[in-house]
């Protein structure tokens, strides 16, 4: 049986992780490679690296980081943040990234999704979507949620699937940072609209939130950042609890 995935997300700026971490025995908490290795050992199923730097050096720094991560990691990872062309994506994939996440650039130029999936295959195209409920309708937002659009979430997910997205990373801006749980109602609805995997993001605060998003939200994977970085939720314990809840999950100490 295909297992549900637990995905820690690392925010990257100028080649370093942005948020602090309080892992013991981790000498350099800002080094994404050390942190990624730690999560791999703990049983993370996949990792996402989101680059939020805006310097001119950005591309080269990110490409170098991807290469270092690929050398150290033996689980899949996605890289996103400012990917706006096939050329951008090619450098990252060539350096060892498994998937590329596109967000604002895909909304501005939807053809980018077609171009990426034609060039590299749907399996490495993740469309990240930030949305927020306005007057009862889920609306897509750009630039990390700063800029609203007139596009409805339900229309956009269908369009990205048709254009060749292999997966959707849905972040609810209403839930992000609240630690009150994922947007399960919206997630479950998305699962009826498209037939590609959906990653739930935004709202993780406790272990039962993960169980809920897999059961009620029908999510294929769940992504979180701070609860993992600050050690509030430890992946081995989380996975043990999910397994007890009869959720298909990969337990690494038994079957590594």
């Amino acid at each position, binding site marked *: *049986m295909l297992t549900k*995935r637990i995905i820690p997300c690392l925010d990257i700026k100028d080649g370093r992780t942005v948020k602090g971490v309080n892992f013991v025995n981790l000498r350099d908490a800002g080094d994404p490679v050390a942190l990624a290795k730690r999560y791999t050992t703990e049983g993370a199923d996949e990792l996402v690296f989101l680059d939020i730097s805006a310097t001119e050096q950005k591309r080269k720094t990110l490409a170098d980081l991807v*290469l270092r991560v690929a050398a150290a990691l*033996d689980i899949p990872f996605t890289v996103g943040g400012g990917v706006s062309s096939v050329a951008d994506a090619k450098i990252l994939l060539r350096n*060892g990234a498994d998937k590329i996440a596109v967000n604002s650039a895909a909304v501005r130029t939807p053809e980018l999704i077609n171009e990426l999936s034609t060039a590299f295959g749907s399996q*490495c195209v993740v469309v990240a979507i930030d949305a927020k409920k306005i007057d009862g309708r889920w609306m897509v937002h750009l630039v990390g949620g700063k800029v609203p659009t007139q596009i409805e979430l339900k229309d956009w997910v269908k369009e990205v699937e048709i254009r060749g997205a292999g997966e959707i990373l849905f972040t609810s801006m209403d839930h992000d940072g609240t630690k009150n749980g994922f947007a399960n109602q919206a997630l479950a609805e998305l699962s009826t609209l498209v037939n590609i995997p959906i990653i739930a993001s935004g709202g993780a605060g406790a272990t039962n939130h993960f169980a809920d998003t897999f059961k009620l939200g029908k999510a294929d994977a769940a992504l979180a950042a701070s609860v993992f970085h600050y050690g509030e939720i430890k992946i081995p314990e989380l996975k043990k609890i999910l397994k007890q809840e009869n959720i298909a999950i990969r337990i690494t100490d038994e079957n*590594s």
Partner: protein
Amino acid sequence: MNTVIIDYDAGNVKSLQFALERLGVEAVLTDDIELIAGADRVIFPGQGEAVSAMKKLKKHGLDQLIPSLKQPVLGICLGMQLLCDETEEGQTKGLGIVPTKVVKFPDSVKVPQMGWNIVTHSNTGLFQGIQQDCYMYLVHSYFVPIEPETSAKSNYAGEYSVAINKNNFYGVQFHPEKSSKAGSQLLENFLKI
């Protein structure tokens, strides 16, 4: 030992090279017929789409070379699928080594299958020393049905082949280079065959 990875523009080859490097093997990425023919081990990677993959193989004469190889050959993902007679993906003819047709997952499940699934295997060959019912990482929309050549299976909308073996040809649907310790063990086993 001389290990080569066939270069035909197939997706994430870097991770495969790194995984082999961690096992102490420097694998050369090449489309040179003589280098491939003379290698001790040949890895036939794959990620992407069948039609353009076959076109690229034909362009370099690799469609003729691969079936004639006598040393151990490991097809990964699309590389495994192309070892078969044909695939539904673009109604493409494969390399004809394993007599079966690769088909698409039904709409009753999410396509592509993406993630870690349980692999039940023969305990022999590539799977020697790997825990039974281990987890491997898979990303694919098409699959190889259960055949006499099946050496490992998984379940997604029913049972299907995640590893096949015929003579010196081995194929795995999962990505061993992305499948943690079990995947690394499988690559090590291939190098020792």
